[in-house]
């Protein structure tokens, strides 16, 4: 396998767009992923994540712009695909083939496979390869594709919602595999709408909304986006405006009653705790927002300001 020069990005999209009859699925998307990076590609259903990936794979032809894999145009699949392995969101296998036959075929035709590591992965993912894929559940089909992809030595792994059918144990195994791949120097492009999974493995994320890339940020900035909800109960009423409103990261400060208040917090909690230390607090509850809340938060009203920020 040719070793690409380190300066060449593992994945580079420039002004990439895709229009289907009337809808714009991907709109002017520019993105670069460096070799060795673990990149999270976030977005709700229908945001255009899979369409982008299908253009990266040369399955769809871009309506505009272009995309390269290690400097090779994506439509030249004979060369570009020597650098990548792929796990689709919805794995479809030929029903009459067994899992082992599928793995052998993918290894035989693919960009080179470490068979010992593959045997280890089959064990770790608890996959029974001697069954026809007709009898596999969604999760088992996904395991076949995951084992095949992780066992390759391809420098870029493109994973499209790879854990949607996996149970929590297998999901943990998946995260380990991503870490191992990163340690070997492989680049991982992970599309997901599971924020926790992306947070656990990715160093940098891109966020897609209605076909547009609205944010590309490192994990630290992503953490800052997370707002936790704080409820405080006091022993006795205090004068309003105890100085909490001015504390870094605090927003939506509300008094439910003279002794109960709620607020949201973005960023580290130390300043809030310092401000609360002077009060007679009898109960303190810090709740992390659910994924749904974060999505609603991010994809709802804050969108326009983010777009401005990016511009």
């Amino acid at each position, binding site marked *: 396998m040719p070793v690409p020069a380190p300066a060449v990005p593992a994945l580079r999209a420039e002004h990439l767009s895709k229009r289907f009859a009337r809808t714009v699925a991907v709109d002017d998307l520019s993105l670069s992923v460096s070799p060795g990076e673990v990149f999270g590609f976030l977005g709700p259903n229908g945001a255009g994540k899979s369409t982008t990936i299908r253009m990266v794979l040369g399955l769809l032809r871009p309506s505009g712009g272009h995309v390269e894999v290690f400097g090779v145009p994506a439509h030249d699949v004979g*060369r*570009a695909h020597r650098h990548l392995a*792929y796990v689709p969101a919805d794995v479809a296998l030929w029903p009459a083939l067994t899992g082992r036959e599928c793995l052998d075929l993918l290894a035989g035709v693919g960009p080179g496979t470490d068979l010992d590591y593959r045997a280890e992965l089959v064990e770790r993912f608890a996959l029974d390869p001697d069954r*026809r894929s007709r009898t596999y559940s969604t999760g088992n089909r996904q395991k076949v594709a995951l084992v095949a992809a992780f066992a390759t030595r391809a420098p870029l792994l493109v994973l499209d919602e790879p854990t949607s059918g996996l149970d929590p144990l297998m999901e943990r195994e998946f995260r380990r595999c991503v870490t191992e791949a990163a340690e070997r120097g492989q680049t991982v492009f992970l599309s997901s709408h599971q924020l926790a999974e992306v947070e656990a493995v990715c160093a940098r994320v891109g966020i897609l909304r209605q076909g547009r890339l609205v944010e590309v940020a490192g994990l630290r900035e992503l953490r800052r986006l997370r707002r936790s909800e704080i409820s405080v109960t006091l022993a006795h009423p205090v004068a309003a405006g105890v100085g909490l409103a001015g504390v870094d990261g605090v927003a939506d400060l509300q008094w439910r009653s003279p002794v109960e208040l709620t607020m949201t917090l973005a960023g580290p909690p130390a300043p809030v705790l310092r401000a609360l230390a002077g009060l007679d607090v009898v109960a303190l509850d810090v709740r992390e927002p659910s994924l749904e809340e974060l999505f609603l938060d991010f994809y709802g009203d804050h969108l326009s300001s983010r777009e401005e920020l990016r511009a």
Partner: protein
Amino acid sequence: MTAGTAPAPTTSAAGRAPEPGAAGRVVTALAVRSVRRGAVLVTGVAAGMPALVAVQHRQLDQELAGASLAALAENPAIRTLFGPPVALDDPGGFTVWRTGTAIAVLVGVWAALAATRVTRGEEEAGRWDLLLAGRLRLPAVLLRHLAVLLGAAALVGAGTAAGLLLAGTATTGAVLFGALIGGTGMVGAALGALAAQLLAERRAAAGLAVGVLLAGLLTRMVADGVPALGWLHWLSPFGLLGRSAPFAADRVLPLVVLAGTVAVLVAAAATVATRRDVGSGPWRRPGAVAPGTGELRSLPALAARHTGRPVVGWGAAVVAYFLLIGLLATTMTDFLTENPRFAELAAQAGFAELGTVRGYVASLFTVLAVPVGAFVASRVAATAADEVAGRLTLLYSLPVRRVRWLATELTGVATGAVLLAGAAGLATWLGATWVGADLSAGAALAGVLNVLPIAAVCLGAAVAALAWAPAAVLPLGVLPAAGGYLLLVLADTLAWPGWVRGLSPFAHVAAVPAEPVDVPGLVGLLVVAAALTAGGLAGYRRRDLRG
């Protein structure tokens, strides 16, 4: 189902209680949606073709056409294909003889394929899991679909009768013929539904149902060809059509037998459905296999795996049919020897060789292009289905150009087509040799290889469809063979102009081994096939992948 402890949902609790039967109506509506397009199309053909033939028969100059018609009708090959002619002087009788078997096969095979598709196909895809999570049980869902399919078959039959009535044929005969066509469709639908209960895979179920139907066609041919076995007519829907003889004898008893067959098949399907698990079937293949069986490491190996089983299935049908053709060779030609007047008329009409074994097998080898063309089209259609189902996504994420994989698949399909044709030739030779007919293996093989360019045109049409009309690969791929054959038959029978006849690929293929090979014709067909295939490959390379 909830136990007695939980209160049943009431109007107040559920907002509004679902009306009893509403779920069933929804399923019926779903079944109607799934079959209506095909039903309308098949009704159009089943109504239009016979009506067209009946109208054109009226306009023929009976004095001039009579002799050549009689010669054609007594051609043993034509008799094998269309059954013995009765009431050829009547427009209705002529229409039944000329189109009856073809229409019955079309309607029966369509109904069987539609039945396996909307029942086992939907179940295999997991969509019935959603449906069965509602209030309806498996047998109820099956019977709802089957009722719609039987209704669709009845509609096709009604269309046939209406078309003939509009063409001005006798009422009794038209209604009886329509009922027999509709009944054959119902047998096909019920067979498909039963096979779909027994087998857990749609493809296998479709193969079984169509196989049984085609066995019925062979049964009728044996019953026609061997007088001592005439009672076999009663075992086949196509035989029952002949026994009923619309516009001649107008017998009703065969129709009653047909109705009884449908009832028995429906009851059997319902019985199996009540006893089996969803997603399974009594004749299911085991899911686990012994490790280390077979190697699969390359694209050609995958293509061979895809094509192998279908070739065996189609091969079995083709071999059975052409073995029978060989075995019947002397029976049919003896008839002409005993009836020298017909042979004389045939010679006058320009079919001098038709009375010989070579002339007889040459006519039937021409028909071989239809199943081989259908095989080729169905395999390209399977590639289109793989694409929609997402099975090609992983493959195309490997360093595999689309043209490389498609060319690999097509090589497998072409090899399969050659094997099918060769098997047909050898089967005919074996059968003919068995009964002592004069046919060499070389002549038989030349005859079958001679029709392969028509299958090549089918391949080209299917590949072009894959590039530009991927939802219609099967119909467009079959068109050059099935449509071309019908066009030639109609053009010959009804004396259509030469350029219309020339649109059919069959017009450019000589009756080998009775006649010498038409080299320019074959080269022309191969050029058309190559142009279509090359264009299709180029288009497929550039377009967006579906699924």
